[in-house]
């Protein structure tokens, strides 16, 4: 079964980090990535640029409204994600709990919907 692990944290934390601290976190992410590739959990994943680079689009009554920034103001922002293959929720949580972002912010684990064609 596939799960999406959404990583939320405070963007400002990253902006405040020294190059050394940043390097340490990146090292943890690299090690984690290698680890879940080796265990067969990894399907995909990406880090996202900060919300300052985001654009939100809505279509209402055929009219397109484009605005800057994310949909809602929240303390933590979506900063990246992993798509993983796991046996069940416990297996997925075991992987998600090792994402370095879980220590800085939080990781939301969502099962992927399967449509029967």
């Amino acid at each position: 079964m596939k799960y999406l692990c959404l990583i939320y944290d405070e963007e400002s934390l990253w902006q405040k980090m020294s190059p050394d601290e940043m390097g340490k976190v990146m090292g943890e992410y690299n090690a984690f990535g290698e680890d879940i590739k080796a265990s067969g959990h990894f399907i995909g994943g990406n880090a996202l640029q900060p919300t300052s680079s985001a654009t939100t689009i809505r279509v209402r009554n055929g009219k397109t409204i484009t605005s800057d920034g994310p949909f809602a103001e929240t303390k933590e922002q979506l900063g990246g994600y992993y798509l993983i293959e796991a046996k069940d929720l416990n297996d997925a949580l075991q992987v998600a709990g090792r994402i370095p972002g879980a220590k800085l912010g939080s990781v939301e684990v969502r099962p992927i919907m399967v449509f029967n064609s």
Partner: protein
Amino acid sequence: MTDASTRAREIVESTYRSDSRRVLATLVRLLGDFDVAEEALHDAFAAALERWPVDGVPANPRAWLVSAGRFRAIDHIRRRARFDARHAEIAAELESHVPISVHGGDDDEIPDDRLRLIFACCHPALAIEAQVALTLRTVGGLTTEEIARAFLVPAPTLAQRIVRAKNKIRDARIPYEIPGQAELPERIDAVLAVIYLIFNEGYSATFGDELTRADMCAESIRLARMLAELHEDSEVDGLLALMLLHDSRRAARIAGDGEPILLDDQDRTLWDQAKIREGITLTTRALASGRVGPYALQAAIAAVHAEARTAAETDWGEIVGL
């Protein structure tokens, strides 16, 4: 009706009372779905009512019921396959997965199934209210109405909570498994928290149906006993002891007019000595294990109070020493 068939019917009924939850736990594991398992459970007992008076009571009634329930569930799914090809695959998949316990009558697997079910019902991915409702409904076998009455929520609200929880177990694939050593202490704590919450709901609430409330205390003690039987742990002993020691004072706690009576003023001859003895034995065992957690510690304090014949005799020195 012959005597033998009357007796067979009585055995079906008593088996339902004593074993229906165990059979359900195994069916949930085999069929992987609460609702399908519940339907299969009822089919299995209906079949027993039909067959046992005629064929005689099987040597291992529980294994017979699991087997009957499983075959009927597969049969239902196969009949649905006429309308939807996907069900044919599900039926084939379920059929290929043959448990040893069904054929060999190996009972060892069955207690584990109940433990698996408790861990699924008390999974931290479910809201705490949902964990409580689902545990009482599935593991405890209480009706939705009974649970709703005890928790003072409308029955439809509670039914919805249970349905949502079952859906989440299915959709997010919460497994029926005993957690590995690394997660076990944390997951056991979650199960204990649910049991203690059920107990406190019965013990400390001052309103609601008296009888139902006492039932909640009895049910939480029963769940903890089952957990202690299935899994050796000093905190499980500690919680069971704590609840027994609290519950031993039930008769002395409330005055005739419904007002609570404080510990100092209670008539200690009303305390249930059998519960106190069992509570103290369990507390002693938990303390001796060397891994003393918060429940065992609270039980130890309650045990010192329970040992004192009068409030003045309470050994405060021992309590401080703990």
